């Protein structure tokens, strides 16, 4: 039994040592003045949709400020906010706006934040290339076919379409993409139960590309990369091109965001520096990874916002 006592003692000593060291590690590095080499951490988490842009920004940023440690996680929009509202992260990437519950939790924890739009994404409505009847679809038809279980065949959607059963492919309900579709198209009505859901957009691409009577939706970038095997539909007569997405003429254009913790902006010079760098480069980098840049005016507004938050 003395062996047990010794090991118990050892365990408690170890845990004290671990906690002690962890506390020592919690202090954030202090960066120098603007323009100097900065250090410290920039912690970012959230949407996997926004991730490719932020990965590109962080990649470029680390060439400029090699001593700043930038981490970008992909807990998903909701998972990211869970960490953000407790003050664990500096930025939370989101493919939708923050929800009321999440905002309330942030307030309860005394976390103040600011929303910054970084780029635009069009939600592509896609069908199989063998589908030679549908070229365009209206928002009402989309709502009807995705919520009404009585709609079984293409004919039920529009009378001159063939009498063939439709297969539905949709992103998983935890994704920000689904949340956006839910708000813009479904009006918060439950999505039809026979829709195939997947968290992996590439699974949806394969599904629609391999099923003649399929319809699905996902980020425009996934359509562009698979243009050969998919066909996109005009929505309310508007094609999902970059110009139509930027001008918001395409009805399923959505901004994608990052939320920044106001306290981080005031206390951490590396966060301010990163925010400026992100705002200056997000547009071009977004285009490079398959998204659409906002109009320059929007980035100019962001820049003002960032200056205000930094207290300058």
């Amino acid at each position, binding site marked *: 039994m003395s062996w047990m006592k010794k090991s118990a003692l050892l365990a408690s000593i170890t845990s004290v040592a671990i906690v002690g060291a962890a506390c020592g590690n919690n202090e954030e590095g202090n960066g120098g003045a603007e323009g100097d080499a900065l250090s410290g951490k920039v912690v970012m988490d959230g949407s996997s949709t926004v991730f490719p842009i932020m990965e590109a920004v962080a990649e470029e940023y*680390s060439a400029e400020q090699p001593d700043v440690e930038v981490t970008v996680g992909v807990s998903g929009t909701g998972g990211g906010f869970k960490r953000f509202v407790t003050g664990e992260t500096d930025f939370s990437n989101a493919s939708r706006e923050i929800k009321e519950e999440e905002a309330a939790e942030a307030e309860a924890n005394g976390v103040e934040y600011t929303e910054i739009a970084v780029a635009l994404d069009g939600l592509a409505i896609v069908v199989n290339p063998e589908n030679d009847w549908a070229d365009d679809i209206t928002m009402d038809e989309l709502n009807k076919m995705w919520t009404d279980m009585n709609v079984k065949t293409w004919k039920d959607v529009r009378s001159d379409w063939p009498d063939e059963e439709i297969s539905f492919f949709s992103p998983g309900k935890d994704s920000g993409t689904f949340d956006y579709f839910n708000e813009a198209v479904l009006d918060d009505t439950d999505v039809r139960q026979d829709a195939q859901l997947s968290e992996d957009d590439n699974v949806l691409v394969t599904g629609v590309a391999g099923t003649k009577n399929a319809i699905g939706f996902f980020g425009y970038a996934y359509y562009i*990369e698979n243009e050969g095997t998919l066909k996109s539909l005009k929505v309310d007569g508007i094609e999902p091109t970059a110009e139509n997405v930027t001008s918001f003429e395409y009805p399923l254009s959505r901004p994608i965001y990052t939320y920044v913790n106001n306290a981080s902006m005031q206390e951490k010079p590396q966060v301010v520096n990163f925010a400026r760098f992100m705002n200056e480069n997000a547009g071009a980098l977004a285009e490079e990874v398959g998204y659409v840049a906002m109009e320059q005016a929007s980035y100019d507004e962001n820049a003002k916002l960032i200056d205000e938050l930094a207290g300058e």
Partner: protein
Amino acid sequence: MALPNSEFKNTKNYIDHETVSRRIKSRLRLNEIFKYIFLAGLIFALLVLSTLIYDVISKGGGWVNLDFLRNFPSRRAEQAGLYPALIGTLWLMMLIVPMVFIVGVGAAIYLEEYAPKNRLTSFIEVNISNLAGVPSIVFGLLGLTFFVRTAGLGSSVMTGALTLGLMSLPIVIVASQEALRSVKMELRHASLAMGASKWQTTFNVVLPSAIPGIITGIILAVSRAIGETAPLIMIGAATFISTTPNNVFSDFTALPIQIYNWTSRPQAEFQNLAAAGIIVLMTLLITMNSAAIYIRNKYTNRH
């Protein structure tokens, strides 16, 4: 002359070869059928495995090179590498192995050699076996609330290692118990009869004989652990990180997270990068397993 002849006749009557062969025919056929069913099982498993390996190597083989191992991830597939993920996974392994060895083998020794055989002990044993079946994401949640928040370790390498370590512990304990149990009682008795204490017996006699089994258990458990993505995402491990860990409290990313991220990208080149990442992870696992086999053989020969 008459006697042996009649005896022979009698024997012939006892074993009627025709009847026997007729009666065992169906059993022999069943035997054949099952042999082929089992063979088909093996071939199916091997086919699936070789298809997977072929798919991975044909897609990712050309992407594995020194730059791939040395570079940070990038939006440009040609420049992308998995250096931080590789280093992160190596850190995790270095922390998990001693952790599960000390705690897991310790627990197994206590349960097998010291604990009284009563209801409490068997209750604990049943619960440990049950823990082995708990989904990994549950360990991720535990890691998030306990290590990240309560203990204040953040999303560090230490948190990752503790979370994955906890996840591997049940397997290690069960395997170690099994290994300790298979050590012959005579060896223990001989040692005790020579005047050795229980601890001396355990440390010098039982443990060395059980080491091969214990190592196998640890390797299996750790191999499973370093292939996990879900618990690491849960504890907030990074997907992109601009630095590599320099101590156990640094933030980190790991190979499975990087691979998972690449598979979810729209561009085809990233799918190839994911395949290349899988090759690196597989090589790491094979190296680890080979080391285990080497250690095992060395000890098995001695005892």
